[in-house]
């Protein structure tokens, strides 16, 4: 059974979310604080983490950073805050997706399923391994590997999925909407999700992230991966 950890300080919200998620067939665990959530995750790793931003003690942003340090578990922020600042900060801390309260349970589980699709590509290893190379950058979607100058690069699942999508369409422009729908499964969604993940990806694969050579922005059109 797929396990979901819900880090939420509001008892009623947590209880309601746990009930609803269990209804949808998840094994749901709750944590009232970030500390408790981090402990729970270290003890028994869940497949997804839902995290609120406003938490007593360690706040959501820091919780995401610590979770991200430990592993690449998909993290979805569930917050009542929808300022650009908060969304970008949470995504930059390492969250994979961001939904604003109140979110319908159907919507939430759709988000989780989209994340799982992304996760699966990483774990499946095929015999035939196509490798895309961009100068010193090598991307093997099937092997779930990215190397820069021969050194493996650690990417989160979402970053990896985004890079694969761009690599499979190398030299072609993908609009933010296309990337949203292909990587996050959004029909309509927040394009900042794409921008922040592209930024994070650049930090890891570009020599000079401020002047990207491979992952370039085409103003008004989208992104393109090139040699």
């Amino acid at each position, binding site marked *: 059974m797929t396990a979901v950890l819900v880090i939420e300080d*509001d008892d*009623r*919200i947590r*209880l*309601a*979310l746990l*009930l*609803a998620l269990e*209804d949808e067939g998840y094994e749901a665990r709750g944590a009232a604080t970030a500390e408790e959530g981090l402990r729970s995750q270290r003890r028994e790793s869940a497949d997804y983490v839902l995290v609120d931003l406003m938490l007593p003690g360690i706040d959501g942003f820091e919780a995401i950073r610590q979770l991200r340090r430990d592993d690449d578990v998909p993290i979805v922020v*569930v917050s*009542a*805050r*929808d300022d650009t600042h908060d969304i970008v900060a949470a995504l930059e801390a390492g969250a994979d997706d961001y939904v*604003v*309260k*109140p*979110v*319908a*349970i*159907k919507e939430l589980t759709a988000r989780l399923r989209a994340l799982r699709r992304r996760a699966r590509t990483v774990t499946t290893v095929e015999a035939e391994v196509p490798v895309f190379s961009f100068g010193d950058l090598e991307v093997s979607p099937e092997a779930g590997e990215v190397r820069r100058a021969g050194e493996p690069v650690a990417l989160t699942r979402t970053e990896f999925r985004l890079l694969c999508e761009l690599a499979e369409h190398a030299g072609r422009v993908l609009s933010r909407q296309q990337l949203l729908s292909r990587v996050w499964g959004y*029909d*309509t969604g927040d*394009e900042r999700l794409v921008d922040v993940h592209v930024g994070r990806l650049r930090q890891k694969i570009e020599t000079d992230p401020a002047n990207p050579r491979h992952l370039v922005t085409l103003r*008004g*059109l989208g992104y393109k991966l090139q040699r």
Partner: protein
Amino acid sequence: MRRLGLRARVTTAFAVGALLLSASMALVSYELTRRTLLDERERTVLRAAYYDAAVVRAGLDVENPDAAEALRTLDTGTSRRALMLLNGEWYGRVAGTGVTDAIPVRLNELVMAGEPAVQRIRLDDQPYMLVGVPLSESAFFYEIASLRELEQTFQVLALALTAVAIMVAGSGAALGWYATRHGLRPLTAVADAAERIAAGDFTTRLTPDTDPDLTRLSTSFNRMVDELAQRIDRDRRFAADVSHELRSPLQTLAAAASVLARRRENQDERTATAARLVADEIDRFQQLVNDLLDLARGDQPVHREPVELTELARRACRDRDLPESMVHLAADTPATWQVDRRRVAQVLANLLDNAERYGAGPVAVRLLRAGDAGVIEVDDEGPGVPVEDREAIFDRFVRGRAAHHRGGGDGSGLGLALVAQHAAAHGGVASASDRPGGGARFRVTLPGSLA
């Protein structure tokens, strides 16, 4: 009559002041000059007359004096004429009888009484100076000198002074205009600032230290803007805070409602109906909270980027299970517009929802151009919008009359207000009109999106 503007009034006052001043100066100088010149001329004429009188007296001081002969010896030139009254007979150097008639009686009496006299007279409409000198008991000498040249000088002088006065008045007006322009410049700055603030830019402030005389104006103006901005900010924050605080309990409700919904088969009919009502109202509540937050955030700047409008419109239809074929792009209109994607997506969504709720469903979404403005039109086949409601429906919490009649209305009541706000954020407007052939047509212009 419309009252003159400050600037016109100041300019007029300057002009009138300058005119009064220069006119009186001109008058005084004219009078002084005239008097001086006339006095001088009088002295000259008198001197000449006395001299001539002496000559004539000498000429008469012989036996059988011949008046004509005596007059002939005078060298009077062309500007003077000499006359003599001898024993009641007039003698003139040049034949001219009319002159004697012009000699005023008062002067004549004086001369007859043995007093020399001088007077200015007009003769044939020409100015002259008449001098009478008694020579003896029975001989009186008169000389008439033309003042024509002097008169001409006065005319030129008057003309010159008038011209100067007019010029000074003109300069006064120009000075007034110029001075008010400078004087009113701070007011222009205030007006510009007020306009910017009215347009929603609350960062506008006046620079307080530009002019010490205007410090009070700029300080109080700035304080007013501060207060206004704070108040607006407070209102907005309150709306945002309220909506925000409602989101957390809504999350509990949404999750709990979905748990109830899952168990609908196990519920009796009454419970199921109640559960469905709860779930529906939570959806509506959620929509209301989201719309309120959007409205509270509405003054954020527009983030323009190239957006493929046809795709956005088709997706909006797709999301509502409406046929994509109802989206029409006019032939002269590009498919990609420079607009704020989020806002325009919401405009399309809200207009389509509105058409579904109150207009018996949308029949067409048209994308066209009007100059550099992109125009979105959504048509429906409903009852249309009564003329008197066409502005009010874009206000908050105003729903169509039809909705009240139906007792329905499942929207937040903020949809069209948001449409209007998004249009305004782009510098455009939202309006409702009749659709040719029945129904309503909602039109949103987005200026600058096709530049």
